[in-house]
């Protein structure tokens, strides 16, 4: 049996070399980020650009030290909106896709409607949502939710559909129940799809929440951004942008982390 000789059981790479290797692979990525920062600094230090057009990274970070911006509260509000909308969309999106897969007639009926509704630019719906739900974090959560919901439903439904029919036959030949097919085969094989939908949604969630804050809000980084804009406080605007992005990066990172935890390397979709 020569083909068993290609791999021998029980070998594994040591943890330390693996970490070093990973850092090595991330080296260029970290490098280019630092290079951009350095370029930014150089342009502001020697480029002769007015501070209100392009503040230096130092000025930008310095805004964090000024308590009157109340950063903590604004970060907290935006984070709640982003994560709230995202989590709700993940839970309901996956649940709806499961319903569609379990009762295909519901999918055939409701999916075209979802596609139509998805054509409405969610951002353009924001003023209406604020009328319905009044000011505050609730309409912003809902905007983030509506923007995240569709990609999660679509990818999950697709994952649940793309199950190997021969594998289902194998289970059916043993009189396996639909629930067994679902829990043992369909759902786990849809997981990579679910995570890929969640990765898309993580990016959208931030945009949804911040747009909501632009339109009607008294708190949150989007609101603060407009406030400081009116006094041409560009360093604070840059800081708002940086923090909004950071919230997105953390959410995205958590999704990727969950994917690494629950999806075997070979099955991940990129």
């Amino acid at each position, binding site marked *: *049996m*020569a*083909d*068993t000789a*290609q*791999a*021998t*059981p*029980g070998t594994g790479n040591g943890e330390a070399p693996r970490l070093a290797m990973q850092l090595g692979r991330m080296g260029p990525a970290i490098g280019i980020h630092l290079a951009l920062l350095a370029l930014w600094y150089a342009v502001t230090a020697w480029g002769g650009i007015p501070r209100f057009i392009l503040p230096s990274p130092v000025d930008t970070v310095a805004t964090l030290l000024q308590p009157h911006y109340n950063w903590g509260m604004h970060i907290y509000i935006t984070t709640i909106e982003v994560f709230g909308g995202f989590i709700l969309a993940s839970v309901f999106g996956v649940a709806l896709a499961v319903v569609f897969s379990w009762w295909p007639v519901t999918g055939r009926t409701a999916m075209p409607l979802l596609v139509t509704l998805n054509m409405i630019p969610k951002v353009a719906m924001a003023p209406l949502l604020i009328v319905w739900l009044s000011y505050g974090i609730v309409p912003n959560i809902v905007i983030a939710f509506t923007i995240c919901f569709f990609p999660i439903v679509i990818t999950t439904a697709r994952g649940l559909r793309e199950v*190997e029919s*021969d*594998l289902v*036959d*194998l*289970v*059916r*030949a*043993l*009189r*396996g129940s639909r629930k*067994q097919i679902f829990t*043992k*085969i369909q759902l*786990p*094989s849809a*997981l990579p799809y679910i995570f890929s939908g969640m990765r898309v949604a993580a990016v959208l969630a931030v945009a949804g929440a911040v747009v909501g804050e632009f339109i009607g809000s008294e708190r949150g980084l989007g609101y603060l951004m407009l406030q400081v804009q009116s006094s041409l406080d560009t360093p604070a605007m840059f800081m708002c942008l940086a923090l909004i992005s950071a919230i997105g990066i953390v959410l995205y990172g958590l999704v990727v982390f969950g994917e690494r935890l629950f*999806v*075997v*390397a*070979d*099955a991940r979709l990129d």
Partner: protein
Amino acid sequence: MLTTLNTGSPIASGQPVTDAPPPFIHLKGVRKVYRQRGQEFLAVSDATFDVAEGELITLVGPSGCGKSTLLKILAGLHGHDGGIVRIGNDRQPFDAGRDIGMVFQQALLLKWRRILDNVMLPAEILGLPVKESRERARHLLALVGLAGFEDKFPYELSGGMQQRVSIARALVHDPKLVLMDEPFGALDALTRERMNIELRRIWQDSGKTILFVTHGIAEAVFLGTQVVVLTARPARMAARITIDLPEPRTLDIKTHDAFGAYTREIYGLLGMH
């Protein structure tokens, strides 16, 4: 029209009393018509053959001749439109809901499960005792030459090794009938020959009745105790040939005159001279 798929009670089976033991599988004039958008398409007709318990019978024919359809009928996944399908006899009753193991062209392992847990799938579906089944799964992995790979993931195995796992999976619940649909069709030629020899050994060690579908004529002759030849357009069973070759079958029987005669005969039946 008599269509039964029973567990083999002698009364229901209506076997004529003869000295020969009743066959484990009895097919007579089996027909299958697919209907699609008002069109009828004859996928299987006239399939008539018996399989004794413990035989390794091969089904050979061009693609589209209804091989997979016939396997699905035997697995109870499709109904048929005519003829008799009977599996099991009173000595060897057949439980249609548990006595089937299946192997396909793709190994179809669950990527997220370790090898041992992949083999366990049928046992879980049937709710068999976990401890005994795991023991059995280990034993079967050893039988297919994969001892020591229990905790690997499928992607760590080559195509041939994955297919061995799927064979172990088909045996874990100790089914009486194993259906194999072109299981080595996706493997390279050398691995395929090696798997043929392995399968003969696994079959002899396990004593299972195996129905093996292939479109490889040499493979069908090499493996089978009998070869059933199917033709397409119209889908029909052309012949049933008993293969009498020296045992144990090693690769050099392929150079035997008898081997050549069998393959020539099948080429002829399929209209290729």
